[in-house]
């Protein structure tokens, strides 16, 4: 079996990349980065494995945080939430789990599965169910392609564990988990039903940890070489710059628990005189210039600091920030008709159909995978 064993330098790169792929949401990667490095220093290991290398009947669990990022920066995890989740689900299933993965590569959830994996020495599959961040649990390529709704589980820092043995629909599962998360103080770790190696190989977005690493590597190399990190991101991702500008207006309101808002960006430099607006529903969803829609969900709209290439989350937006608005094609699996029903513009309440921006291509695995010694 070939593995990619992560170093602290790899964690730095992956954290930057997960931030960019967070499309404004998914929460900060900072705590995950600190925890992952602390675990490596304790002698634990984090091993990535490619989806194609997993045994077809392997049992894989998706792990990720659920809750409000603003709460998560105060009530930080206890550390063994993931271990308690695994134990609870293994007890329920009556068998061991072979690997874990993240349902969502974007933001802090791109690192979350690695922390549990390091503690119990399980490999992490280099794939996820979004290739970005989405606001709701059922918005994964796994649920879109029929992942079982049960069992699922939730664990908090205080020691509470909840196992959902039955839920009628993925949407109902999302409701149950979110309501319980509030009872747990608005921050918890969750897992959805186990998936087979074959299922993940077919319906996971492949090599998204590799993709995050490559984006982060490009940014760090550009910073070290005093080159433009935003250009480096574009070159690495195959995306385009929609605008370089500054934030001139940000309006936010909460509707049904989700932050909705609109960002207005006035162009600078070569883009002077242009104005771009971006619709926000926790993530950046739709980019418009005037009436014309340029990029729409599920294609990625990523906003980064013009100088450093650091991803800017929706909660960080402030008047005067100098930013670059980037557009990257969504992974192939998100652009299918069946996927668009769950994650296309209409799924977010818009009255228009998806028009792609750019050509989809799945990310390759990094060349760091080596035969296990």
């Amino acid at each position, binding site marked *: 079996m070939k593995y990619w064993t992560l170093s602290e330098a790899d964690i730095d790169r992956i954290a930057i990349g997960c931030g960019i792929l967070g499309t404004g*949401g998914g929460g900060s990667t900072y*705590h995950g980065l*600190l*925890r992952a490095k*602390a675990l490596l220093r304790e002698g634990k290991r984090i091993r990535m494995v490619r989806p194609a290398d997993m045994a077809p009947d392997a049992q894989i669990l998706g792990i990720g945080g*659920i*809750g*409000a*990022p*603003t*709460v998560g*920066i*105060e*009530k*930080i*995890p*206890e*550390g063994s939430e993931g271990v308690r989740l695994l134990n609870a689900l293994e007890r329920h299933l009556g068998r061991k789990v072979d690997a874990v993965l993240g349902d969502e590569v974007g933001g802090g959830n791109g690192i979350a599965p690695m*922390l549990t994996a390091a503690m119990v020495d399980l490999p992490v599959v280099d794939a996820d169910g979004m290739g970005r961040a989405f*606001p709701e649990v059922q918005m994964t390529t796994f649920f879109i392609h029929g992942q079982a709704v049960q069992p699922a589980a939730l664990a908090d*820092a*205080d*020691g509470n564990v909840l196992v959902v043995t039955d839920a009628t629909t993925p949407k109902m599962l999302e409701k149950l988990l*979110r309501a319980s*998360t*509030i009872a747990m*103080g*608005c921050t918890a770790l969750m897992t959805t039903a186990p998936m087979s190696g074959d299922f993940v190989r077919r319906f996971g977005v492949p090599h998204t940890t590799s993709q995050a690493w490559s984006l982060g590597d490009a940014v760090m190399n550009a910073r070290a070489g005093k080159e433009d990190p935003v250009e480096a991101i574009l070159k690495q991702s195959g995306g385009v710059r929609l605008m370089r500008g*500054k934030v001139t207006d940000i309006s*936010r*309101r*909460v509707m*049904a*628990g*989700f*932050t909705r808002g609109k960002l207005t960006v*006035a162009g*600078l*430099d070569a883009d*002077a005189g242009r104005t771009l607006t971006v619709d926000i529903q*926790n993530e950046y969803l739709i980019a418009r210039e005037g009436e014309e829609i340029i990029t729409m969900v599920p294609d990625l709209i990523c906003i980064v600091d013009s*100088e450093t290439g650091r991803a*800017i989350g*929706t*909660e*960080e937006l*402030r008047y*005067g*920030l*100098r930013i670059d608005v980037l557009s990257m094609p969504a992974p192939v699996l998100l652009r299918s008709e069946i996927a668009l029903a769950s994650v296309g513009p209409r799924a977010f309440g818009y009255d228009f159909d998806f028009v792609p921006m750019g050509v989809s291509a799945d990310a390759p695995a990094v060349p760091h995978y080596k035969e296990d010694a």
Partner: protein
Amino acid sequence: MLRIGVDVGGTNTDAALLRGTEVLATVKSSTTADVTSGVSAAIRTVLAEAGVSAGAVNGVMIGTTHFLNAIVEGRHLEKVGILRLCGAATRSLPPMIDWPDTLRPIVDGGAALVGGGVNYDGSEIAPLDDVAIRAACRDWRARGISAVAICSVFALVDPKMENDAAEIVAEEMPGAAISLSHRVGRTGLLPRENATILNASLHTLGRDTVGAFRAAFAALGLTCPLYLTQNDGTLMAAEFAERYPVFTIASGPTNSMRGAAFLTGLSDAAVIDIGGTTTDIGMLVAGFPRTRSEGAEIGGVPTNFRVPDVYSFGLGGGSIVRPGSSSTIGPDSVGFRLPEKALCFGGDTLTATDIAVSAGLVDLGERDRLSRITPEFAQQMLAQMKASIETVLDRMKPSADPIPAILVGGGSVLVEGLLEGTSVSLKPDHFGSANAIGAAIAQVSGEVDSVVSLEGTTRERALESIVAEARARAVEAGADAETTTLAEIEETPLAYLPGNAVRVAAKVIGELRA
């Protein structure tokens, strides 16, 4: 009202004496190793120059980088016992996890993670663990530790646990200096805890420094209150500063920018502060410095203090000039050794000041010594300096539209004429002492940043209570309650949850109480 503003920089100590809004005198002297004797000398000179007696002065306002330097250099810091009130939560990231390896062992006096803390809605995570707190205190006391930082999860939602824990610590460790996180930082456990630990670590230095100022001022015959300027350009009374020295860490650039606003009457402008070694460029928005979106790192320690968004680069009066096929200016500087190193003073190093003297922009030293600088070379170097400022200015500006620029600091003599991208480039009177003037005119503020649950209350009532708390803090810091106004209020709904919780940050500003 007679006020003296003093700004203590790494090289120079500036002082300014103001009557109301009139600048009576300014003076620049050298910073001394003990800080206080340089401040005393500057105050004595400025009083003599204006012919004002010390007894007539109503207030002295000091901006100092003393505490920042202590952290950066890892000197004069004391070990801190760290008490985190958290129950089981937060243990994956223990205190000081993101400190630099050089500073951590200097400050780390041992951490105790004990029962306590609240959730975002104020409900208890775990009851306060009295027994564990007392055990930790006995251990710290046995090891000679006398500074304690207390940080509770969601202390800004409910500070009661921190206050209760402080009472227990005070019982077990009589005379200990206790820093409470809800008084020091904003929402975000790690950066707030870091700031609280830094504050506790500076406690003895804070007490000693303020004590030395008091003694020196008594010797000068000053009987008025003493204030220190903090990160946002507002003042805190000396007794408050003794307990919260960490609030002074970014006051330098803020004072310059506030002084520039005062001297020109402009509230929206670029401020270009050219010193001996560096040029700092920042933006004034509504009379205050624009702040950075990320929290400040102090000596490599992440905190969530809001500090001015200032771009600093190596250009100043002492910058070393190297002629060649592509001549360079800086980024290295002779710094405070300018009076012995520069050619015009008989030294052996060609500096930016020599260029300015040779071009006739300023009369310093002996111009005869600069005969080998050709007028063409001087003009070329001046143009190069101007272009480097213009490049940074362009990055900092909010838009491509021309804006006013204010040049301050002793090195401003290096720049002549209109800068590109500006509508007007002003060099006001007293430009060399804008930092001290900014300290003299400072107001007083109080800030709160908290998460509030709207269950069982209305949004209006919740906001009111936050603003009232900010107002109370402003008054505690020395503001005249009658003059307090709400300067900033920022409401951020919490994403991904159907609950009714919002994060509210409020800042109240008022005039100094007479």
